[in-house]
C-alpha cells in the first residue's frame, strides 16, 4: 500500500522533537549565532535527556546512534519503518528549531555515528558515552577524500599520526576526534583508515576555530597532528589494506549520513516556509492552491514553487531512509535526497528573505540566519556537485575514472 504520510508510530517522537526545537532551540537560536564560539550550555541538559532515552537516537539526536543496517531488515518480507526513518524525522524537526544547535548536541557528533556504525564491541565499550567529532577534510583535500595526506604509521603497538585537519565540526568540544589518515599514500583509497584520537592527546593541537557564514553555534576546529600516538586498538574497522573493500568501507559512513544531512536541510527549509507564509498572509497575499500559478500574484506563485521543491526534497529524504530501513541499496536515492534538499534549502531560504524584504533580511527575525545556515547543508557531507557526480555515475553506469 503506497502511503507517504508520517508513520503514526513516530508521531510522539516528532512531537517531542518539536517541543525541544520550540522550547530549547528557538529561544537561544539568535544568541548563539551572535556569540560565536560560546558554548551552548543549555544543551548539556538536553544531551543527558537524549542519553537517557531508549537507544539514544530515538528522539532524533543527530543520528549518532549510527546506521547499522539490520541484516534481517527484510526478513519477514514486510514493510519496515525503523530507526533510519525515525532519525530523519527527528532531525528535520530539531533543525526546524536550529541546525547549528543540533550540530552542537553533545555525544551526537558525526564521529559518534561512525563509531556506532563500524566499531567492535571492545571499541564500543572503551569509547561509548563520549562525544566524537569527525576529521576528514584537509587544506588540500575536500571533496576528494582519497587525496588526504595525513599519515598513520605503525610503531610497535601504536599508530603515529601526522598531518593537518580542517573543518572539524565540534572539534574543540568533543572528547574524541575520528581522524582519517592513510597507512600508505602510494596505495590510494584503500589505505585510508579512521583512527579514534582522544581530544587531550598531546599530539593533537588546536590551531584555531573558524568564523563562519552560518551554523555559528557549532564550533568548527582546525588541528595539526604532530607525532600523535594512538594505541593500535584505536583503528576503526580492519587494519588490512583491502584494495577491493577498503575505501568503500570508509565511504559507507557517507552513504548512511547523507539522508541525515538532507533531513537537516528539510527542517531548515520548513522553518523558513512557515515564517514566510505567516508574513505573506499577514500582508494580505492570497495563497490559494486551487488557482494555477500563472493566475496568482508573483509572490504567491513564487511561494508555491518553493513549497513544491520542499515537498520533493522531503519525500526524497524519507524515501532514502525508508529504503535503508528495508535493507534496499539506497546510495542513489541518498545522493538524490542530499542534492535536492541541499539546493532547495539554499534556494528557499534565500527566496524567503527576498519575499519578506527587510523583515527577512534584518536580524529581527530568524529568516536571515536560516539563509546563512542553509549554505553549509549544500556543502558538507558531499557538495551539491559531488552528489550530482554520484547520481550521474549510478544512472549512467560509469566508474569514477570514466566520469571524474
Amino acid at each position: 500500500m503506497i502511503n507517504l504520510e508520517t508513520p503514526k508510530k513516530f508521531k510522539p517522537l516528532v512531537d517531542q522533537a518539536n517541543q525541544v526545537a520550540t522550547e530549547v532551540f528557538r529561544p537561544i537560536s539568535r544568541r548563539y549565532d551572535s556569540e560565536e564560539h560560546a558554548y551552548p550550555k543549555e544543551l548539556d541538559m538536553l544531551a543527558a535527556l537524549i542519553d537517557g532515552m531508549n537507544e539514544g537516537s530515538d528522539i532524533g539526536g543527530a543520528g549518532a546512534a549510527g546506521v547499522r543496517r539490520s541484516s534481517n531488515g527484510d526478513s519477514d518480507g514486510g514493510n519496515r519503518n525503523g530507526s533510519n526513518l525515525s532519525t530523519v524525522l527527528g532531525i528535520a524537526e530539531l533543525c526546524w528549531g536550529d541546525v547549528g544547535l543540533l550540530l552542537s548536541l553533545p555525544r551526537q557528533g558525526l564521529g559518534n555515528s561512525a563509531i556506532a556504525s563500524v566499531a567492535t564491541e571492545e571499541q564500543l565499550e572503551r569509547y561509548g558515552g563520549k562525544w566524537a567529532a569527525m576529521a576528514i577534510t584537509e587544506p588540500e583535500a575536500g571533496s576528494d577524500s582519497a587525496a588526504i595526506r595525513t599519515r598513520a604509521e605503525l610503531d610497535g603497538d601504536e599508530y603515529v599520526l601526522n598531518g593537518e585537519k580542517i573543518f572539524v565540526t565540534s572539534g574543540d568540544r568533543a572528547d574524541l576526534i575520528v581522524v582519517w589518515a592513510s597507512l600508505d599514500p602510494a596505495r590510494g583509497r584503500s589505505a585510508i583508515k579512521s583512527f579514534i584520537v582522544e581530544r587531550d592527546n598531546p599530539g593533537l593541537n588546536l590551531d584555531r576555530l573558524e568564523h563562519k557564514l552560518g551554523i555559528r553555534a557549532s564550533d568548527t576546529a582546525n588541528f595539526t597532528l604532530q607525532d600523535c600516538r594512538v594505541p593500535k586498538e584505536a583503528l576503526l574497522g580492519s587494519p588490512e589494506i583491502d584494495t577491493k573493500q577498503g575505501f568503500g568501507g570508509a565511504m559507507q559512513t557517507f552513504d548512511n549520513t547523507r539522508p541525515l544531512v538532507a533531513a537537516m536541510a528539510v527542517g531548515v527549509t520548513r522553518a523558513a516556509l512557515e515564517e514566510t507564509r505567516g508574513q505573506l498572509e499577514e500582508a494580505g497575499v492570497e495563497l490559494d492552491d486551487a488557482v494555477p500559478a500563472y493566475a496568482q500574484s508573483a509572490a504567491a506563485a513564487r511561494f508555491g514553487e518553493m513549497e513544491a521543491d520542499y515537498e520533493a526534497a522531503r519525500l526524497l529524504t524519507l524515501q532514502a531512509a525508508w529504503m535503508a530501513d528495508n535493507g534496499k541499496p539506497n546510495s542513489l536515492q541518498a545522493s538524490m535526497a542530499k542534492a535536492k534538499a541541499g539546493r532547495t534549502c539554499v534556494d528557499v531560504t534565500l527566496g524567503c528573505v527576498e519575499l519578506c524584504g527587510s523583515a527577512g533580511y534584518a536580524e529581527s527575525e530568524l529568516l536571515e540566519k536560516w539563509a546563512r545556515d542553509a549554505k553549509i547543508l549544500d556543502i558538507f557531507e558531499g557538495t551539491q556537485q559531488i552528489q550530482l557526480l554520484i547520481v550521474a555515475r549510478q544512472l549512467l553506469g560509469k566508474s569514477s575514472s570514466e566520469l571524474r
Partner: protein
Amino acid sequence: MSGTDKGVSERSMGFGLRALNRLAGSSLLDRMRIRGHVERAVFSGSKNGFRTATAAGRTFKAAQRLGKPARQGRRDGGGLFDLTPDDEQGMFKETVSDFAAAKVRPAAGEADAERATPAELLAQANELGVNMLGVPEELGGVVGEGAAVTSALIGEALAHGDMGIAYAALAPGAVATAIARWGSADQEAAYLPAFTSEDPPAAALAILEPLPLFDPTSLRTRARREGSDWILDGTKSLLARPGECELFVVAAAVEDGGPALFAIESGADGLSVEPEPAMGLRPAATGRLLLDGVRLPGEAQLAGGDPSAYAECVQRARIAWCALSVGTAQAALDYVIPYVNERIAFGEPVSNRQGVAFAVSDIGIETEGMRLATYRAASRADQGLPFSHEAALARRLCAAKGMQIGSDGVQLLGGHGFVKEHPVERWYRDLRAAGVMEGALLV
C-alpha cells in the same frame, strides 16, 4: 507544371489566395487599423468550415438502478510509510507497462503525425480495464477501494509509452470516474454500464477553456436556469477525440453559484465540435467543444452542484496529468542515458563530461521528486485525507520540472534531438501539457 494545366478549382483557390495576399500586403488595412479584425475573420472563417455536430451516440439506458449511488470506499493507509504498490496495483502496473512498451511506444510516432490513435490500440487499452478504474464493484468495476494510486500508476506506465496515446486511452475513464464519484444513482445507472461493457464509449471531461490565465475556479462557460432546465453556453478546449465522444461531463459556472459539472450526451442541440490541433498530445486528436444554448434537464447536474465536488475534480485531474508527466519524464531519462553513453565527441562518450552527466542527474532527481509528490497526493485521496494542497504541490513540480526535463531531453541529443528521428522532440511538446491541462483526466 504550368498554370494552364491546373484544374478549375485549384485555380480559383489560387486566385482566392492571391487576392487574400494582396489584401494582406495592403497598407490600407493598417491605415484603417482593422488588420486584426480582418485576420481574425479570415482565421475563424476557415476554422468554422471544420465545425461539425457531435457524434450520433448510443442511447444510454438505465440497467439496474440502486437505491442510492454506489461509491468506492476509502483505503486504510496502514499507518506506515510505504512505497510498495499492493499486489493488485503491481499487477496493473506491470501489465500496462508491458502494453506501453510493446504496443504504445512503437505506434507513437505515427499517431503523432496522423493526429490519431489506432482504434485497435484504444480497444486493447480498454480490455486492460483502464477506463473502469473509478467504477465501484457493485456497478461492474474491478477496483473495490479508492483507485487514485492505481490510476496514477497506470497513467504513468501508459505515458512512458506515449503521453498523447495515454490521453486518448484514458480520457473516457475520466467521465466514468466523474459519474461514479459525483453522479446520482440515476446517472450511474444510465451511464456506467456502457463503460464496463465490451464496447465502451469515447467520452470527455471538459473543464479547460481557451483563455489566457485560465483559472478553473472562474469559468467563462455559463449555466443558467430556464424553468427546471439548464441552458449552457461556452467553449471547452483540448478535449480528446471530441468528434467521437458519446458523452461529455462539462464544467460551467452556475448563475448565482460556483462552478458545477453537467452530463451531456452527444447529439444535443447546440453542441458542436471543431478540431484544435496543438503543440503536443496529437494522438488524442484534440478539439474544442462548443456549447451554444445547449438545453439540459435539471437532473443533468452532477453532485447537486456541490462546489467541493468540483474542487475535488480539478485536483484529481491535476494528479492524473502529473502521473502522465512522470511517465513521460522517465521515458526521456531512459532514452537519453544510452544516447549520451554511446555518442562520441572529442574522442569519448559525451556522458564523460560533467556538463552532460549533471543534466542527466537532474532529470533523475526531479523525476523522482515529481513521482513521489504525485503518489503522495493520490494516496491521500485514496485514504480520504485532504489532498488539495498535495495535488497543488505535485502540479507545480510536474509543470516546472517536467518541462525542464522535456527541454533537457532535446538538448542532450543536440541537433539530433530536434529532428523526428528521435522521440525527445515529441516529449518536449507533450510535457508542456502538464502545466496547461485542466480536467480531461482523473485519478
